């Protein structure tokens, strides 16, 4: 089973001009299917925060429904369904509001975790990292070469053609992280190659597994990370695999039994105690 947490924080340059956070995230766990989504509304578009909010909600709900359907066996089709649904929904919202879809422009990353598969779909410059026992890899990073690294949005006509779809066997993958581009300077070791910065992902994975992990604490971390070099909105959603037998039943002083998750406490404590701004 997977444990998930995540949050967003408004970017420092957005604060200066009084703009709200255009990033959004959502996740769901139902039966054996966990779905995670992040989206970054285009800063140049007036209604993009509504675009990103609607995108993640729809993405998670459509992905979850597709993957849980009896006999569902074509994961690439689930991902395509997510992008075409979000594209249509944003188009419908735009026409209802007498706007153009471009006003709601947003990037979108969706991850579907099933018993057997890790399915990743991305449109735009989102960052998805998969972890295997402390080794991390960025999945299908957004290309950077001249003329191709324009950020693409799910609202574009060619959104489905632009989507980067990756299907991986779930075996061995024990953590998955989603982010918008606002954190790129802080969580990548190298911007050009999108190689992950390992200590960050080690610390986040350990934290997510710890029993006290909260979305509020993730939000506070993002808000306190002011020197992010991008000035952009920041979002982090992290999922870590925990086995049912990792759950210990701990007797509390009051005689109550609570579920606790066994973790690498040293790593969790290290993550939790690293002072702000320290490398």
């Amino acid at each position, binding site marked *: 089973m997977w444990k998930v947490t995540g949050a967003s924080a408004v970017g420092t340059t957005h604060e200066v001009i009084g703009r709200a956070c255009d990033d959004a995230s959502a996740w769901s766990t139902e039966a054996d299917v966990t779905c995670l989504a992040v989206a970054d509304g285009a*800063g140049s578009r007036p209604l993009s925060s509504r675009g990103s909010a609607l995108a993640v909600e729809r993405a998670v709900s459509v992905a979850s429904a597709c993957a849980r359907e009896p006999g569902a066996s074509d994961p690439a089709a689930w991902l395509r369904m997510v992008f075409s649904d979000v594209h249509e929904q944003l188009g419908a919202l735009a026409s209802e509001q007498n706007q153009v879809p471009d006003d709601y422009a947003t990037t979108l990353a969706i991850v579907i975790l099933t018993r057997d598969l890790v399915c990743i779909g991305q449109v735009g410059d989102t960052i998805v990292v998969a972890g295997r026992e402390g080794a991390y890899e960025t999945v299908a990073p957004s290309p950077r070469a001249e*003329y191709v690294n324009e950020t693409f949005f799910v609202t574009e006509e060619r959104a489905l053609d632009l989507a980067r779809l990756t299907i991986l066997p779930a075996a061995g993958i024990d953590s998955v992280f989603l982010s918008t581009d606002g954190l790129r300077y*802080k969580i990548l070791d190298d*911007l050009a190659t999108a190689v992950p910065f390992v*200590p*960050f992902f080690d610390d986040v994975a350990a*934290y997510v597994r710890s029993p006290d992990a909260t979305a509020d604490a993730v939000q506070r971390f993002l808000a*306190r990370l002011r020197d992010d070099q991008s*000035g952009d909105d920041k979002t982090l959603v992290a999922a870590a695999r925990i086995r049912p037998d990792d759950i210990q039943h701990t007797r509390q002083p009051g005689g109550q039994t609570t579920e606790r998750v066994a973790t690498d406490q040293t790593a969790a*404590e290290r993550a939790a105690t690293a002072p702000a701004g320290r490398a």
Partner: protein
Amino acid sequence: MPEFFPRVNQDNPDPRIACALLLDTSGSMNGEPIDQLNQGFKLFCDEIRDDELAKKRAEITVITFGDTAKVEIPFTEGRDLEPKTLRAGGATPMGAALNLALGQLAEQKQAYKEAGLEYYRPWLFVLTDGEPTDREAFAAAAERVRQAEANRGVSVFGIGIGKAANMDRLKELSAQRTPLKLDGLSFREFFSWLSASLGAASASNAFGSSDTGVAQAEAADQIPLPPAGWAAA
């Protein structure tokens, strides 16, 4: 419970904003004008060092055109920029200076890309108190500059100094920005504005890893330049 603060990468280099200053050092600049220019540039060096972001994000080159067009100061980070006393003399080979600047800017951008650095749209400033004496070279160079601007590869600022500055020639350098005239010899005000402007640019997130990416970032985050108090009405 202690606050969650995972280790983050503190070593990724900041995005860069390349700024080429093309300064007229022809004979007519001799005396008070070149003195004021030198004082203004010295002030600029001090002020850019005081801007937390611009000192590491802005990279400045100074190209003069007088006897010849030459690179007086190669691209240097704001924090390492040192004043240099420029001397006036000779004609106004502005076309040669523009060609030199375009070459320097292209090389700089290439270096950014190779180093994996993101960048802002580079700035090209042309300050003159006269008109190009290399007319043919200037016509071709001006065309190249307009093309670079149209390709969103550079922002061009033309500035005329004194009554003899040919504003029509400066106009040929940009289809997007009208050249301005310096109010008297207010070089100090101009350079102070330039350091503030580089500070404002550095504080914006109008940068990317390619010219297309930069243009897209600019659409989301326009750089608010301070008012040009140095310009003549």
